[in-house]
């Protein structure tokens, strides 16, 4: 097991290196000048000579290879550099913004898992019936509607019905948990509804297969109550693909909240990424993308490890291999 984890971590490091090289090249290949954006000098109000000095100060006048070597050296000691836009350490900016994004991810997944799995199970349990049809229709709408559109409808509804407006100050969870939850529930809901639909449909599909298995028939023949058959024998065995999906979705959500955070004005990582890209803030873009890649790597590894917990056969398989 330890060897397996070490192998996966090593592969993860390789992935991160690849991602960092690609991002490093891509952000520099973008048209636009970090020095111009940093000085707010668009429109020619700052001379080229001054801009050259700024580029030199930031090391942007160096060849890309040297810039990459400098950046890698810092990354090796977990220094993500200084944001050209905010002037803060990128890690400090991330540290302040990540909790909001994490809270939305966690809340939306709680909503998605809490509603998606039961609705998928019931849909499969009563396959072809009225409950199934209603749930199928709802989940289809949830899948078809983009989360930003759901978000806009939510805002509109909240404003019209309750005179609600987005909070001016987003309370951090650790300062005021209840207030924070009450603020972030709406963006979480707009994202979570789509995830709910996704999980619900996946759960239904798996459960339809599982409920047709011999061991389910055996359980029923032994007189196990139907609820126990479905949830204890069926759901437990059908969870693997759903867990995989949840793992991927959590990782994807960290980088996928850009529009939702923007329309709800949440000061999370998504908004930070948008501002960084628009301002050609190279260290910030590189730092955040590296972090997101790291989250995906760790997320995938966690899912794999969870497989072992949920299905002992995978543990045995690795041991044999």
């Amino acid at each position, binding site marked *: 097991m330890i060897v397996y984890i070490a192998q996966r971590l090593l592969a993860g490091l390789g992935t991160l290196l690849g991602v960092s090289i690609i991002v490093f090249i891509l952000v520099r290949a*973008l*048209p*636009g*000048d970090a020095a*111009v*954006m*940093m*000085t*707010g*000098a*668009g*429109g*020619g*109000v*700052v001379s080229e000579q*001054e*801009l050259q*000095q*700024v580029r*030199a*100060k930031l090391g942007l006048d160096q060849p890309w290879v040297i810039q990459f070597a400098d950046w890698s050296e810092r990354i090796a000691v977990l220094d993500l550099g200084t944001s050209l*836009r*905010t*002037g*803060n350490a990128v890690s400090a*900016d991330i540290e*302040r*913004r990540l909790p909001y994004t994490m809270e939305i991810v966690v809340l939306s997944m709680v909503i998605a898992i809490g509603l998606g799995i039961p609705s998928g199970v019931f849909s499969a349990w009563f396959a072809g019936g009225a409950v199934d049809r209603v749930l199928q229709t709802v989940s289809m709408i949830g899948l078809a509607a983009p989360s930003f559109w759901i978000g806009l409808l939510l805002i509109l509804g909240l*404003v019209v019905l309750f*005179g609600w*407006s*987005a909070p*001016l*100050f*987003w309370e951090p969870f650790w300062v005021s948990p209840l207030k924070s939850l009450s603020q972030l529930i709406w963006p979480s809901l707009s994202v979570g509804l789509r995830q709910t639909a996704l999980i619900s449909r996946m759960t239904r599909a798996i459960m339809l297969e599982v409920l047709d298995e011999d061991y389910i028939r055996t359980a029923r023949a032994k007189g196990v109550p139907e609820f126990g058959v479905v949830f204890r024998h069926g759901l437990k065995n059908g969870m693997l693909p759903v867990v995989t999906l949840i793992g991927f979705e959590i990782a994807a959500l960290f980088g996928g909240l850009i529009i939702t955070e923007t329309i709800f*004005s949440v*000061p999370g990582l998504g*908004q*930070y990424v948008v*501002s960084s890209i*628009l*301002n*050609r803030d190279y260290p910030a873009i590189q730092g955040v993308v590296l972090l997101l890649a790291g989250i995906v790597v760790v997320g995938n590894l966690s899912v794999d490890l969870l497989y072992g917990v949920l299905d002992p056969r995978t543990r045995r398989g690795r041991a044999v291999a």
Partner: protein
Amino acid sequence: MTQSFNAQGLGLNRRELLIAAGGIAAASLSGPAFAQAAKRGGTLRMSNGGDPPDFDVIQSATYLTQMACAPCYSTLLRIDPTDYSKLLPDLASKFEVSSDGKTVTFTLREGVQFHNGAILTSDDVVYSLDRIRKPPTGLVSPRKGLLGNIVSVEAADAKTVVVKLAQPQPDFPFLVSNPFNVIYCKAVAAPLDASGQGMKRTVVGTGPFKLSQAIDGQLYEYVRFDKYFGEAPYLEKIQSFPIKDEIARAVALQGKNIDACFFFANESVLTMLRKTPGITQLRRPTPTFVNLIPNIRLKPFDDPRVREALSLAIDRDSFIKTVGPLSGAFFHSLGLLLPDSPHSLTADEMKSFPGYDTIPGLGGNLAANREKAIALLAQAGVPKDFKIVMPTRADIPAFRDASINIAAQLKTVGLDVAVDVRDAGTFYELENHGQFQLIAHSVAVSGALPDQIFGEGYTSFGGRNYGGWKDDSIDDLFRQQSREIDPAKRNELLRQFQLAFLKTNYQINLAWVGYAAAYANNVKGWNALPDLYANMQQDKVWLDG
């Protein structure tokens, strides 16, 4: 002979300054008056836009930084919050202009404290002014041109600063007091500047409020500075929330989550707020103009006939009716200065320039103009359906929507114009490298004086010469008016400058932008000046209940 201005609590208007520079007469001055008895205390909650990119107001070119920093800093003299044409003492209690107009001596107030407890000396002023006109290596100064007439700045003693000018400049006291030209504490700024960091994350000023919290994306909070040298501000605290979206700002105002927003552009926001009781809303022209700028370095725009045809093709009335509500570009002026400028041209003069007769009220004939434009293009050898690509910025309506409108209008004279919408970074890249044929550009200059608008926007050496033109006669006229101390003669030179520039069509004026502001009726003491940057210190603002 020198002229002395003891300006304790007094104001100097621009005409008086013109006279002063010639050493002719003393100024008669009066302090600001506020009719209603002001109340102390309370927190003003406001939002003027998104996050400021940083706090180094001297290095900055954006109103976001200026508005975020204005409550914390002071300038040598200050624009009167009640009358835009007057200056009040700020850090300088008085100043003297020598008889030749080439030496200006500022006397600083006694006992002015910075927010860190340091006492203001002339070294701080010398350092700040030098930082503006000659920024240290690695720092930038978008407004160094404003102080380009300075030969030297010296500290005569701890409280006296002597500024030598290359030539007399009646606008100088206003230029040096531009709201961006704040005074830093040398002991704080110098080491940060040397490190290349500058004052981007550090705010230590002498202004009425201290920055107490700055949370990017969330909140900027200011508390009253108890040792402020001037009259104590009325407000206890200011909270500024960075709300980028204008509609979201308006909703926050409607929902009473904020008390004021001193910057809007979109008219639909004002329309929405007009229906809300208890909110005052207004719009004022500001020194931001929208121009159509041909790239003179490229054919066929080097041909004056082509540029004239461009101007003739444009219906300026229809431009403000369609682009105005989206961008705030609602105003026309007679000439190249702000609408209602004392130096405006006459209507007859204005309508003599091709295409400008479509300004409302000037009685132009658009169809005839466009026929003439087609003929001029043919004479210049421009083929029918000549392809033009206009790059524009996606994020600012005064660029984007102006470009879309102009593209449609130019099609009526047989030009095949496509608008290429880019993000700001890409747009700057194209613009700074002259990689465009034609752009519709919103130009926000840092003040409304002729030296500011013409110097920055209408000289070949100014920072806004995107089209790459070169014309010594225009530049010479600019310098002549800048140094002319006789008001009547200067007015004539300003007239000549405008007449000469309008003939060239190096830049084709389309409209002027007006900023809008809206605030709850209990917000008192704020006055919307015809300059977005002035009067943002908030020390005269108070809350009525």
